[in-house]
């Protein structure tokens, strides 16, 4: 799966340097460095409470970082709110989907950002663009763009949510556990789609608990351990066991946090 070879890697799309974030007395993120490259799937893994959700919520502009630097396409940027993130081309697909069951596929894909002609909604243009986007992602599992989302399967719904994220010429798509609630075939379907996003040149961040997903599609694996970035490694350089050690202990052999750091992190 991994196509990028060391040395041929493109410059990072998003780079976080020395990110810190506290909620009151709780130091959730400590000096986190994180890189996402275009055309790659970067898996963000870590145990519950490791800080994955906080990290992406900060990237999405839902929470501000306390300190640290964000570089987007090499330029330092500040993200003050979700609109800033969207303007940069960052889109997030949330775990609980955030689709409206009572609206159809097109309405959901354009929700909150409808196209108009005058004061009326431009339904034909929206339907065309939705169809084009789904086709560009080789989605062939929807019967009609005008069926309500409630009539879709879990995999199809996830597909719609992902397609919505790429509709806006986005550059970075962050997927929060997209396969958590899916069956085997649907997971396969969604992972293929994730891979296609990266192959189309987007930067993709995949948050997941599922090691199979990670090993199947990720080019790069970033492991958070109790708020610290234990390691961000190339997927082909590590195996399943090493990743699990990184998640559970913060280190594996000579990769990851130094023993002292890991212990301190554990204390904190």
């Amino acid at each position, binding site marked *: 799966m991994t196509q990028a070879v060391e040395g041929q890697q493109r410059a990072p799309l998003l780079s976080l340097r020395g990110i810190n974030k506290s909620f009151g007395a709780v130091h959730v993120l400590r000096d986190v460095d994180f890189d996402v490259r275009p055309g790659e799937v970067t898996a963000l893994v870590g145990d519950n409470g490791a800080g994955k959700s906080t990290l992406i919520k900060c990237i999405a502009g839902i929470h501000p970082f306390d300190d640290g630097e964000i570089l987007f396409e090499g330029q330092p940027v500040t993200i003050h709110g979700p609109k800033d993130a969207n303007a940069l081309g960052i889109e997030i697909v949330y775990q609980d989907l955030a*689709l409206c069951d009572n609206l159809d596929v097109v309405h959901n894909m354009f929700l909150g950002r409808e196209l108009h002609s005058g004061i009326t909604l431009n339904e034909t243009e929206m339907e*065309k663009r939705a169809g084009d986007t789904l086709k560009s992602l080789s989605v*062939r599992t929807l019967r009609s763009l005008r069926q309500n989302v*409630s009539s879709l399967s879990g995999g199809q719904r996830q597909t719609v949510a992902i397609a919505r994220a790429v509709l806006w010429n986005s550059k970075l798509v962050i997927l929060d556990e997209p396969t958590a609630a899916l069956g085997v075939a649907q997971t396969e379907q969604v992972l293929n789609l994730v891979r296609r996003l990266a192959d189309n040149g987007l930067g993709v961040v995949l948050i997941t608990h599922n090691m199979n997903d990670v090993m199947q599609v990720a080019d790069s694996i970033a492991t958070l351990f109790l708020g610290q970035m234990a390691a961000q490694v190339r997927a082909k350089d590590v195996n399943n066991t090493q990743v699990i050690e990184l998640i559970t202990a913060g280190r594996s052999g000579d990769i990851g946090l130094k023993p002292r750091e890991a212990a301190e992190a554990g204390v904190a």
Partner: protein
Amino acid sequence: MSTTQSDSAQVSQFDLETTPGQGGIGEAASGYWERIKGGDLGALPAVIGAVVLVIVFGIMEPDSFLTEQNFANLLNQGAAIMVLAMGLVFVLLLGEIDLSAGFTAGTGAAILGVTLTNHGWAWPLSIAAALLTGVAIGLAIALLVARLGIPSFVVSLAFFLGLQGAMLLIIGEGGTIPIRDDAVLSVMNKNMPVALGWLLALIVIAGFAFFQFWAMRTRKKAGLPTPAISVLAVKVGALAVVVLALIWLLQQERQRPNAPIVIQGVPWVVPLVVALVVVLTFLLMRTSFGRHVYAVGGNAEAARRAGINVPNIKTLCFILGSTLAIVAGILLASRDNSVSPTTGGAQTLLYAVGAAVIGGTSLFGGRGRIVDAVTGGLVVAIIANGLPLVTQKSGVQFIINGLVLLLAASVDAISRRRAAATGR
């Protein structure tokens, strides 16, 4: 979620439709039947209800119920309920309720009566004052519901009591204010000239046909799937038959034989209701605001994450609800030629909620249309009109009205469960 097996079957079975689907009537009919089986009943309960009720009342009281005079009466009785229900559709779409709408209507009527009769204002000024009061009431309810987060059930129950008190104070203890302004009275008491009535029918049918075919042409041009032309023709034809039949009934002379004056023609309230349906339907179906109302009602959290200002949408819906309630109140005052402390009280609100729900608007939010208020309102009006002809006992009438409301709510709940089970 369906099983993995059926899902993978779907993968191979279906393709994204890229060719215009020329299904024809057969396919459209089977699609409609599928929707009904899936719990999406639409206007079906209202249509069946109306037909059954007309047959039942027609058999029991053929001489008083099945007359042209009574049909015009029935529309007049139903008009205020329909407009009140249109306002409630906006609130119900959010999954909220406004129990105070009936007395909001009453308050509007009271303000109209006092300013017109006691202070001698011109009618446009009086109506504007009443409508502005509606905006203020809606805004107040919305602030408490959307910003403070009090359940709308409680807020509107408080307003139900408070507005009842406000009405008493405005009208004065025990009083009834007569309304003598011709413009206000003519809405419910005068009829359109016969020619104008036919013109109205023509405009409605031609307008509907034009927009159906125009929408189809735009889709075709864009290379999107379109319904077969025969399906559109059947739709337009069905509407034409219904509209022409109703207008024809209203054009008949409704006085007893040998009466000194002729009463015929479409009551002026009919074009008013039609105009409200068109404007509000446009607002709900063709603008971002309308789309966002459905989104908030379907999944408020998803709407928020999509960047929709949920409290603003709720506020606008409550304001629309209360303002339309005021319009209903003006109609009530026009019909009664007066305003009393009971205007908008008694069963008015429950009739309106019943009308919206019977028409197909869900009490759970996210599903409903403006036209539901009219179809459901017609059923409610038939009941309100026919029941007193059948039985004089108001105890029996109350019980039957309560049962009808429960029946409508049950249909809503059952169709929702079916919809959840079939994934619609």
